[in-house]
């Protein structure tokens, strides 16, 4: 049958080309340069072009390797089945330290840390206890409830002035890194303005703007005046929706002041600072194996972004009040809970 011969010929030709190029490629491949400190960062499924969480970590990675004269390996994941191959890539790139960009990579970190005791591993947003607690692991944790607290104060004040003491949250998933923001937000909003009501809804998604826009719409229908987004790219939809309906939005992780017209402020998680400090520290032999690094208001690892001129010009007292909370937290006079009551927000 001639048609089959065609298929056979095509397959043979393809294989021959493959082998030829392969031989060519491997012959030309230069020996890996091992000079300098090599740091790898594996993103979570959102990739490095999200609204800040992964993106800022990459910024921290590049800044750190530039500072210490090392080499950076930012590696993108597209699905959770990419995590393993990406760690394999990092190992084959002879990385000295491999940083996981989020707690979703926890299981993979645990496996590789056990398999490769001579490589250092760190993970953003997860305590080291959750990934096995090995000596070559470090957790990079953030007291995001402290940032959530400060934006909660401004949100409660703004809602009170607008006539309804109701504020909302558009969350991604009910997971600890999201809920700690919400816990702080709720705690301080209720403390700053008695009787403030909090509406919380989860989109189940960190990507799709329309889902969070729907949540913002629902909450605004229930009289919410300010929407705090804790849902990554999805949450930007909530900010835009709130602006459209002449309410206010609060950004998360990165400074999202320019995402929409009416942004009150943003709760910052400076993931770049965490990654930077971890890499620079590890390169100088200051790796705290089996322990967690904590980034909070005190060491400027979390904070508040740009505040709208509506507040800074007309309501300076609110900013003063917020700063009072801030100094109380820093001086341990106010303890903000990291989880909602009964772990339910």
């Amino acid at each position, binding site marked *: *049958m*001639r*048609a*089959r011969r*065609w*298929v056979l010929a*095509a*397959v043979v030709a393809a*294989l021959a080309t*493959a*082998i030829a*190029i*392969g*031989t060519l*490629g*491997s012959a030309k*491949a230069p020996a890996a340069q091992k000079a300098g400190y090599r740091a*790898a960062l594996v993103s*979570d*499924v959102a*990739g*490095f*072009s999200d609204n800040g969480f992964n993106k800022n970590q990459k910024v921290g990675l590049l800044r750190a390797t530039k500072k210490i004269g090392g080499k950076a*390996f*930012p*590696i*993108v994941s*597209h*699905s*959770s*089945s*990419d*995590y*393993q*191959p*990406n760690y*394999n*890539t*990092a190992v*084959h*790139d002879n990385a000295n330290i491999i940083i996981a960009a989020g707690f*979703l990579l926890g*299981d*993979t970190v645990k*496996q590789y840390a056990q*398999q490769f005791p001579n490589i250092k591993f760190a993970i953003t947003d997860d305590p080291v206890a959750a990934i096995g607690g090995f000596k070559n692991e470090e957790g990079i944790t953030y007291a995001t409830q402290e940032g959530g607290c400060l934006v909660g104060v401004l949100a409660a004040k703004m809602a009170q002035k607008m006539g309804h003491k109701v504020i909302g949250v558009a969350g991604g*998933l*009910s*997971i*600890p890194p999201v*809920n700690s923001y919400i816990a702080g937000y709720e705690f301080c909003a209720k403390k700053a303005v008695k009787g403030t009501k909090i509406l919380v809804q989860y989109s*189940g*998604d*960190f*990507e*799709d703007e329309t889902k969070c826009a729907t949540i913002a719409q629902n909450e605004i229908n229930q009289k919410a005046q300010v929407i705090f987004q804790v849902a990554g790219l999805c949450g930007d939809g909530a900010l835009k929706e709130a602006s459209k309906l002449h309410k206010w939005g609060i950004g998360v992780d990165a400074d999202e002041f320019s995402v929409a017209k009416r942004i009150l402020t943003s709760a910052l998680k400076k993931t770049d600072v965490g990654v930077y400090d971890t890499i620079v520290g590890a390169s100088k032999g200051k790796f705290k194996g089996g322990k967690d690094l904590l980034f909070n208001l005190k060491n400027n690892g979390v904070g508040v972004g740009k505040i709208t001129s509506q507040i800074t010009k007309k309501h300076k007292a609110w900013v003063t009040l917020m700063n009072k909370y801030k100094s109380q937290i820093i001086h341990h006079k106010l303890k903000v809970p990291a989880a909602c009551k009964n*772990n339910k927000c």
Partner: protein
Amino acid sequence: MSDPGPSPTPEEAAETGTLAASIALKQRAGGIIVPVVTVVFAFVMSFIIVAATQHSVHTALVVFKEIFLGSGLNWLAHPTTNTFTSISAYNLSQTLLQTTPLILTGLAVAFAFRCGMFNIGGNGQYLVGLIVANWLGVDFAGLNPFLHILLCMSAGTLAAAAYAGIAGVLKATVGAHEVISTIMLNWIAYWTASWLFGAGGALQNSTSPTNPVSNQVSPGARLPDFWGKQGFQGLHVGIFVSLAAVVVFWILLNRTTLGYEVRAVGFNPDAAAYGGINVKKNFIRAMAISGAFAGLAGTLDMLGGAQNYQVGQLDIPFIQVGFIGIAVALLGRNTAVGTLLGALLFGGLLYGSFHGLGSSSVIDPTLASNLTYIIQGLVVLFVGADVLILYVWNSRKKARRRPRGKPAERVEATT
């Protein structure tokens, strides 16, 4: 020649020398040449795009070399089996891991196509297979491993077949177009999975209640890895199931009454009905078989996943295998072997570009993943254009032949 069939096939007729048969052969050959030309065109176009956007031909060369090395196909030149010392072996094992479900979703689309239907519901059917396999894989811990795997695979496959059958029934009874109904069924499966695996869902991880991922299937229900380090996402035996499915697809379509009816309905439903074939029954049956292929892909991915391959809410939006299956089937011209080769191409392209360029020295890794989508898009575009290529091919032939012979009837390519 090697074909034992009693009646002369078009090829054999061609060798007897009639003009119509020789043109048929050319068209049949075109059936292989056209997809190859399509792929080459897509690669050339994307090469031009990379070279133009990076302002360097050299960069584009490096990029395509990195994609090739990333796919692990260079392993064929230096075969070693240890996937932890050889990056190329590891890459090839991962490429084949991606190819495994793509073969099946490709076959799913191809089977429906052969019955004249467009199954866009591969993603939803894949998810149904995945959910059922997870449920049974977790719940029947302690069962004999062979029986357990068999149970999960067959139940997942049947569930997906029934799920796709809904679209077939709707088409057969009320004439609802299968494109619309399968797309809607995709979303139903998606949200069902979201709900089941989400926090508080029935199939959600029972040890960490705040983490929206599934439980892991019990070790007994896991498809064993035969290439790679155990527990580190090696290549599992599911690929042999996929390869067997290719054979089943071919036999079913070309050597059974069922396949004959399916193809007859695909060529012309009215003529098939006139010939005494129950068209409605065939719509339902073909859709169910199509769904079975996609569902089987889901069960393989669930049972074959490495230790920490979990499917949670965050993963589900990223599952694209059903849609890539459409491109695979189109490229493979809805034939068994074509689909297999198409799946291998897309598997290599996906893994090669994501991981070969994942830590590239010449191109931004974020751009790299978009490059994969560009090549994918171009392939689909050119596959759509193959009708045009065939037209040009044939009109060139006709222009030469018109003075001597009469125009030949068109013969469908079947392999």
